[in-house]
């Protein structure tokens, strides 16, 4: 039991990079990017192939990250320069990446069991939190830079940031690229942790990423960017703990996890809007009553 929780913490942190990638597109850019399912495998494939060919695990991991960056640039170009609908450009890239990943791996599954990995010399539970903190600090620092502000504004009010001189095509491409880079980094690390890369390893990643983002927001809040990104990482860990616990329930099978994930995301998407409607109705009632009361006393509120 305790062992599986430590395992959940470890894989939660490894998948957290993927969740942070989804956070960038889904929350910051407001761009539902389905490239994720393909780019996760791209990262895993590049890392596994390089490691099995004797390259250093660090170089292999960074190359996986780079592969994701390139995949993201392609999706971004399709969307901004090709003017293809956002969902569609993601789907197209996801499909294209299947073939590309197959070319990289040249077979559907590569085992790197007993080969070198960044987890060989250092214990995963020591190195993984360090990588997570470094990535979080760099990402947050970037999101508070001039370019990062422009990126955030692109998802918030595109017309405004364009009127202040930001090339929003460029900021979108940068954001989608960075997002898929993180997703691929996650794939590269997961491949080393599980000692294999599989051509279907990325299937359903986008939904898992969304679930992590949403769970993190719901449990830990999101008052600003730093708070939000930390919540996403913690959300990813909670998701893995939920998975670990669900796998111990006898009548559930491992393959049910995708259904459970989908249900978590559906609840999380439906609940806030219903709650908002109810809250607004209540608020409106309360305010109307107040205004009626104030109106009878003939005092008017105002000011800026």
């Amino acid at each position: 039991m305790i062992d599986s929780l430590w395992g959940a913490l470890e894989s939660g942190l490894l998948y957290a990079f993927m969740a942070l990638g989804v956070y960038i597109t889904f929350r910051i850019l407001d761009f539902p990017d389905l490239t994720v399912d393909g780019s996760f495998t791209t990262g895993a494939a590049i890392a596994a192939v390089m490691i099995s060919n004797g390259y250093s695990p660090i170089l292999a991991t960074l190359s996986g990250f780079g592969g994701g960056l390139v995949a993201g640039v392609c999706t971004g170009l399709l969307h901004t320069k090709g003017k293809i609908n956002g969902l569609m450009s993601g789907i197209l890239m996801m499909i294209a990446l299947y073939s590309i990943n197959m070319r990289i791996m040249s077979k559907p599954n590569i085992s790197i069991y007993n080969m070198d990995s960044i987890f060989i010399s250092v214990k995963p539970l020591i190195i993984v939190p360090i990588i997570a903190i470094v990535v979080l600090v760099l990402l947050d620092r970037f999101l508070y830079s001039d370019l990062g502000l422009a990126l955030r504004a692109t998802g918030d009010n595109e017309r405004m940031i364009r009127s202040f001189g930001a090339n929003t095509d460029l900021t979108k491409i940068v954001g989608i690229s960075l997002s898929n880079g993180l997703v691929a980094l996650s794939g590269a690390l997961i491949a080393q942790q599980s000692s294999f890369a599989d051509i279907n390893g990325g299937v359903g990643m986008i939904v898992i990423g969304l679930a992590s983002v949403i769970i993190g927001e719901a449990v830990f809040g999101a008052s600003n960017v730093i708070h939000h990104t930390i919540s996403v990482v913690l959300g990813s860990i909670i998701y893995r703990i939920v998975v670990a616990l669900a796998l111990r329930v006898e009548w559930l099978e491992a393959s049910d996890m995708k259904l459970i994930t989908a249900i978590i995301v559906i609840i999380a998407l439906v609940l806030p809007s219903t709650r908002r409607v109810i809250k607004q109705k209540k608020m409106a009632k309360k305010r109307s009553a107040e205004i009626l009361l104030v109106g009878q006393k003939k005092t008017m509120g105002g000011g800026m």
Partner: protein
Amino acid sequence: MLQLNHVAKLFNPATPDEKIALFDIQLHMKPGDFVTVIGSNGAGKSTLMNIISGVMKPDTGNVIIDNEDISHLPEYRRSQWIGRVFQDPMAGTAPRMTIEENLAMAYARGKQRGFSLGVKASKRKLFREHLSRLGIGLDERLHAKVGMLSGGERQALSLLMATFTNPQILLLDEHTAALDPARAELITQLTESIVREMNLTTLMVTHNMEQAIRLGNRLIMMDGGRIILDIDEERKKDLTVERLLGEFEQISGHKLSDDRLVLG
């Protein structure tokens, strides 16, 4: 400073819905000019703004700022010269970002956006100084999300963001139209003092006739995509709303119709 030469723009060209949005527009503004623009619905006022700011490209003619032909530049490249405030208070600011982050983005206008921190201590001090000039207490709320501000506050912030980096041209597109009268008056006063203090070359579209006459040193009237009346400082001094309406009817042959027109 700003020149439009023979600018024309068609909407839906060569279709049954073809419409002349702008027809052979000639407009020259001197540095420090404050021109107010009025006209009926569909007169081409907003198209004029969009052509200058680069949201739309003219079909013919060119746009020149400071002797440089910028007709071919996209909107984001022109923004180094142009500050703009939109009619919709939601349009000029990013709601999920803080006041200081919004100001930092405006501060970066015309500069290369890189990896240096958007909000630094030195900039924060500058932002606070500028905000305090608005006199509505925003300088105490640098970390507040802009989405929490009222329409009037957001428009005041938009105005500050459009002007505090000293743009060559300031475009105001009915920027008080969506506000209630008291807030509209406050924004108008802020506009007047900022434009005067910084001596900004300004083009302001308004549907408020009284405001159009009171503000600025020149007034132009548009109808059917043309500039039909251009009133200089001398003649503007003893202009009244009635005389303006009269002149409009005389030249255009029909009554000035604008469903939002405010006579003053």
